């Protein structure tokens, strides 16, 4: 293994991704992209829908958001049940 421990005197350098203004920029960019994608629903028509729900305005947008939050929420609940100490099986 090539384990490289951090050098004690090394200053934690900040990269582009760590500067708060850039993080803010990324988030603003994401929000703008999301907005554009929802607005895109106004300008095209699904030529071959299978379900009525599919054609409602911004369906996959809110569905993606809700599904993601739901999965994370369920994960948090699951953790309460299944979480054990790291060495659980080694004892």
């Amino acid at each position, binding site marked *: 293994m090539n384990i490289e421990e951090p050098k004690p005197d090394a200053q934690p350098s900040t990269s582009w991704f760590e500067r708060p203004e850039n993080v803010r920029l990324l988030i603003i960019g994401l929000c703008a992209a999301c907005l554009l994608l929802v607005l895109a629903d106004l300008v095209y028509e699904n030529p071959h829908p299978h379900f009525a729900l599919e054609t409602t305005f911004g369906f*996959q947008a809110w*569905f*993606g958001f809700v599904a993601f939050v739901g*999965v*994370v929420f369920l*994960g948090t609940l699951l*953790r309460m049940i299944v*979480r*054990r100490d*790291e060495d659980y099986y080694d004892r």
Partner: protein
Amino acid sequence: MIDSVLPPGLIMILGAWVLPFLSRKAQAIGVLVLSAISLGVFLLTPTDQHLNIGLFGLTLDVVRIDSLSRIFGIIFHLAAIISAIYALHVRDVRQHVAASVYAGAAIGACCAGDMITLFVYWELTAISSVFLIWASDNERAYRSGMRYLIIQVGSGVLLLSGVILRYVGTGSIDFVRFTPEGGAMNISAMLILLAFGIKCAFPLLHNWLQDSYPEATVTGTVFLSGFTTKLAVYALARGFPGTELLIWIGCAMTLFPIIFAVIENDLRRVLAYSLNNQLGFMVVGIGIGTELAINGTVAHAFCHIIYKALLFMSMGAVLYRVGTVKATELGGLHKSMPWTTGFCLIGAGAISGFPLLSGFISKSMIISAAGEEHLFVVWLILLVASAGVMEHSGIKIPFFAFFSHDSGKRPKEAPMHMRVAMGIAAILCIALGIGYPLLYSLLPYESDYHPYTITHVVTQLQLLLFATLAFVVLMKAHLYPAEQRSTNLDTDWVYRRAFPMLIHGGAVVIGWADGLVRRGFLALLNRFLAGVEDMFSERGMLGRPWSTGVMTFWATILLAFCLVLYYL
């Protein structure tokens, strides 16, 4: 009768046994050379070839190359080559031999025309691959490998039982479709389905995957991720297309692993859960069974092998350089491992299904197939699962390893050969996403599917970007569960803890009952002995001296009794 076709995979299986005689550096190159030669021979072998061998009165169809086996053969070869490049630094002959035999066996298995040949290769994949786990050389890996081996060999035993029953019932050992259209499944088909299901990590039979893959060596996991489960997908697609049960099994498989993945700390284990979730998509496709669905399954297996290998390779590079893949101990690695970060992001994008990457053009076929069949609930579940993929593989893996909080660790960039392997996989992810017609032309059925419609691109991007937005919102609101060092219980708890506890508990109960009976009997015996002792002691009824009068009285009674008896 023996034709002139060479069984695919045989070059790798037999060639592996030459490796120990080579120098340590040549061993690593040997696996790569064997895989490349094998691929060349395989590509030159025309489709619809058979090799029949007579054995014990049975005719074994050792080689059957049709459109379904060909595409799996090609992707297995590609996986072997990429993994072999990734493993060029390994100086451990066990791993090289195991990897070569394992890949060769998987290739042989997908070209097996009969069930006996399939069984032989099936078990060979199990036995060879376990050495990739054991090669980690620690107690955890040894135990985990043992569990893996027992389960894998068990799957083979079930397979053989099913095959024997089928042979007795029908006289056929051909590897064909086992479920008649709309007909009920007989016991042999059920056994075979169960055998395939174990290897495919069906819900409740899945945990060998998350248990063993993260314990294998850095390079071993990359090999493992390619073959075993996808061989099972191939076998299911061949034997059980259109089996409705598989739709629901697949749906369950897409859902539960994503929830476990949210809270798992070991990032290679997160990838194992993610692998499980992706297999779910394929199983749903097999269950739907239409031409589009089967095409989608095969295409997804093809793309999946590459991007999953890429993700495992990137986490392997982190493990190789840092010595851990625990999310709690990583973060900020993009500063010193930019190449690995970039490749990981491409893999993450591909698995999530971003347009222009491979997952987009394969997963959507399965989801569309569900739509075509008007399976509304299935369609919704697959959408939830897609958002879930974005969560664990699209965001969690790259974010916690390479960005997030700076761990202060500044490992070196991955070695050149690892970067080359990851680079090839990343290029393939992009190439498949753009040059999808080439992949579609290899699929078992004619395809006129067009993934890049405006509707599809927009809706998919909506799903993915709003899922990302949800991540940002949850992070900002401090609602995203923090990474924690932990072990999360899964079904392996049943055989790692519950069974031993039951056995231990049973032993305690038996010991207690045994003690109770023993003590009770001893107490009874002691009381009896005490009574006897009392009776024969100096003051006891039978031990004390009796007076002459009493003796005379009893002697008279006795004589009187005899007299009565005499006159009766």
